């Protein structure tokens, strides 16, 4: 299954196969840093606003597609909020991989992450940071990084084949 996380409210993408889209259709509450999703209700966020099961959904996916405005070399705050609320996808304990400390797996699927960033004034430095962020994400998700694309505007993503 493909999981698409986007900050575009009414996305118009041409998506093939089984998929789920997470977009700002309803308000999302921020992560409160309680770590209950690791130590009280392992695997699920305790904030019941409809975004609490994203970690579980990620465990069922083989593709994660992020479509976000590039803000200062980062995903936008909405996409980051969804990511923060889904840390239960991974295990709290650490392992050493590629000489660095990362999180242990909770699930054993391998996510392939593809990212589509948009924005009319993304600098080369910001693009590099966004790529590095996606690489760090897959290192902790125990996934693989696919392509990271940059578009000049949200409109350029209309009807894109995913």
């Amino acid at each position, binding site marked *: 299954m493909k999981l698409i996380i986007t900050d575009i409210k009414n996305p118009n993408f041409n998506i093939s196969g089984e998929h789920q889209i997470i977009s700002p259709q309803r308000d999302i509450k921020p992560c409160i*840093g309680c770590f209950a999703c690791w130590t009280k209700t392992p695997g699920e966020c305790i904030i019941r606003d409809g975004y609490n099961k994203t970690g579980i959904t990620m465990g069922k996916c083989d593709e994660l597609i992020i479509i976000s405005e590039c803000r200062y*070399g980062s995903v936008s*705050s909405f996409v*980051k909020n969804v*990511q923060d609320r889904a*840390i239960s996808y991974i*295990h709290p304990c650490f392992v050493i991989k590629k000489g*660095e400390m990362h999180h242990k797996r909770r699930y054993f699927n391998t996510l392939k992450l593809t990212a589509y960033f948009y924005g009319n004034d993304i*600098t080369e430095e910001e693009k590099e940071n966004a790529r590095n962020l996606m690489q760090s994400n897959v290192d902790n998700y125990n996934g693989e990084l696919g392509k990271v694309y940059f578009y000049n505007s949200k409109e350029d993503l209309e009807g894109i084949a995913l």
Partner: protein
Amino acid sequence: MKIAIINASPKTRNSNSELILSDLKHYLNDQCEIIDTKLSYNCAFNRVYNEVKDADSWLFAYPLYVDNMPSHLLKFLEWLSDNKLSTKRNIYAICNCGFYEGVQAECAINVVKFWCNKTGNVFSGGVGVGGGEAFDALKSVPVGYGPKTSIDKALGTIAQAIATKSTTSSKFVNLDYPRFLYKIGATGRWHKLIRKNGGKVKDLGRQLT
């Protein structure tokens, strides 16, 4: 000289950011006037902005979440930028990560740097702190000693830059403590927390469908 220290941990209290800021304040001493404020997950942006708007410099302290800054801080930066509320200040950043290697906070520090570039502020230095989970256990260790030596040295350098309203290069520092022991300690902490909540250690890896 007024510095606004913005603790942007989502937690309302007992954050590692708070402990790290306590060491930073030791170095700042009486060299500048400090405006201390919180930007936790439930803070109104207007209130925080009104508290810090008169400061010459701002320092953001935050934990690393998913290799980046927490979303509520990113949303605050977007809000400031979209409302054209902040320019020409010296901006400093301290990001602490649960991972041992402080360099893993580099992307999260860069986000503040690029925000400065977009908003006409002056990015004036950052510190990526590794091993943030150990700070609670190191509360009784004097500033600048033991496992905190390298981290506190970097905090001392950025404090000097803040006090003189100057720019310093970003630094990424680790605990002066072996990584394997830190990893054992962190694992023990999670085991303790799940037991405290009535769970078993194996529940930490529970898979939900």
